[in-house]
């Protein structure tokens, strides 16, 4: 799948229209052409309903485009079967959601181990990796805590550790600080920047918060389902 010199991620004429009461459906994205180089840290900004989350879902293969093509490392992946897309997500993408989305019935350690279990990583190795990741995000000693026993900041740290579990090349964060206070938000952003740099991962961060977006090196602004601006910092 690795194309030498190819962008980590490329969207070619991607559109997404939702079926609804309208005869022609409701377009959420229209003809997006966009590429991200490996290791980039990109923020996607824009008002509510502009298509940020839809874009993230298409990049992360949670959804399939109704037109156009999604490519990872030069290979078209958007039109793969559900099963193949699930496998690609499991191996290649780390998701961080606004509401953390930890499984409430699993401990912090088990939540981090979950993607590795699905990839059949041997028990000893996944236990070690999960412990290391929790330590890396500053949650040593909280391995056996259930999500409801953790603060919001701690839950999001577990979510970051889970996103890193299968060593993905692409990290997708959808309003990762939306439910956190400023102190925890700053800590999570610092953590994301650090793990991205340490792992040379590509990070796409969706936010409507300019302060959060300012952390990125590249800023994409969306409006009405289109990319209105794409700015790189010097």
């Amino acid at each position: 799948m690795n194309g030498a010199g190819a962008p980590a991620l490329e969207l070619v004429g991607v559109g997404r229209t939702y079926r609804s009461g309208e005869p022609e459906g409701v377009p959420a994205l229209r003809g997006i052409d966009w590429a991200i180089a490996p290791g980039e840290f990109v923020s996607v900004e824009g008002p509510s309903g502009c298509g940020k989350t839809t874009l993230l879902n298409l990049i992360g293969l949670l959804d399939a485009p109704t037109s156009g093509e999604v490519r990872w490392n030069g290979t078209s992946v958007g039109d793969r079967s559900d099963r193949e897309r699930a496998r690609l997500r499991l191996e290649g993408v780390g998701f961080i959601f606004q509401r953390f989305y930890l499984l409430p019935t699993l401990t912090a350690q088990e939540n981090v181990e979950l993607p590795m279990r699905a990839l059949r990583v041997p028990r000893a190795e996944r236990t070690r990796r999960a412990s290391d990741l929790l330590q890396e995000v500053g949650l040593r000693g909280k391995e056996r805590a259930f999500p409801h026993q953790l603060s919001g900041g701690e839950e999001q740290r577990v979510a970051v550790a889970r996103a890193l579990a299968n060593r993905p090349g692409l990290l997708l964060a959808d309003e990762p600080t939306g439910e956190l206070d400023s102190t925890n938000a700053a800590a999570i952003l610092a953590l994301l920047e650090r793990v991205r740099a340490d792992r040379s991962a590509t990070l796409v961060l969706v936010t409507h918060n300019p302060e959060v977006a300012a952390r990125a090196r590249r800023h994409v602004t969306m409006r009405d389902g289109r990319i209105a601006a794409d700015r790189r910092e010097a």
Partner: protein
Amino acid sequence: MMRFGFGSRLRHLRLQQILAIAAVGTAVALPVVLVSVGGGVSAHELGSLENAGYQIVVSAAGEHGITQAHNLTRSILRVGSVVAASPVLSVAVDVFPSGSGATPVLAEGVIPDEFTPTLGPAEDGLFPSPLPLGDPTDAVHFANGTYTGPSVQDVLVSSPLAQADGIQVGAELEIGPTAERGGAVAYNVTGTFGVPPTTLGPTGAFAIILPLSNLQVMSGFASGPNTTAPDAADTIEVAVAGSASTDPAALDQIQNAIQALVPYYSVSALDQEAAQLQSASGVLTGFYLALSSVGLTVGLLFLALVLVRRVESDRRSIGIQRALGLPGRWIARSIVGDGLLLASLGSLVGVVGGYAIVAGLATWGSGDVRLAARWAQFDPVTIGAIVLGVVLLSLLASGVATRSALRIEMTEALR
């Protein structure tokens, strides 16, 4: 697996699981009780047949049953290997203990000498031996095809009847064919006999035994004295000697010989009856299971409902797992695992509950129910098959829930 969130949601889910386990448990308990009790009763009847002291039965329907019972008995006794041929006439009569009214009892008329060798191991020691009923051949009263001799007028009374009505050995007891005391005749109580457990309860244990010819005359099956009317019995129980009693081929041969003597009567070997009973028992077990399938269906529908309900309440968790890339089979395995666990726990509850119900009936039940429950047999193979069937069918219930889970739209679930 099976670990849930917290607070009221946890309690709610636990309640659903408990109800699902209870539904499956109830569904399993029903066939466990039916099959165990039904099978136990059949096994008891089979045991009675196998433990009888006779191996061949001659019987005939009709008002007078087997006519010329005495003559036929003599003919059957001449067949090789036959050691006893005991004609039995069972008639409902009334006894009139002194100072009280009529008590309906079951009267059995027998030839004493022939009756004793046909007693089985289960009846060992219940009857005095020899039976103190006067002439052991019953030839004094019935001789040469007529009732010209003196009647014996001796009777044996069952222990429960003697106890209930205060009948003493050595006392006189009036016995009549109807509840009218005027038609009764005085008999000498010469002894008592015990009764094995019976499904008919205490009433069935109220019985008397008297010489066959006396009962024939009293009940009108034969007229006397000086009558030439044929005597009668319900059945003639035939006991066979030694190794022939357990040799199917020899029994077959003897049965054929007796059948040749009485071509119009039914002659059956007890092993054949046992085979028929076993076959009937199998059919009955099938019927019980078919009946129980209604309960099982309801239980499994409830299980499916609980699993689907759980999928609904875990919609977001399932969406998260799918978003992370966990394969559908991973989610299916979790739901099927839960279904199997609930079905297994329900089955365990059902088996234990069924056992407890039967034990309770055997302890606190009344009459026939109590006796039947005491005979219950818990066949591990049948119960295992029921549990296995329930557990396998729970896969169907889990399949419905799994289908529902895999149709959840990820992006919808994560909103």
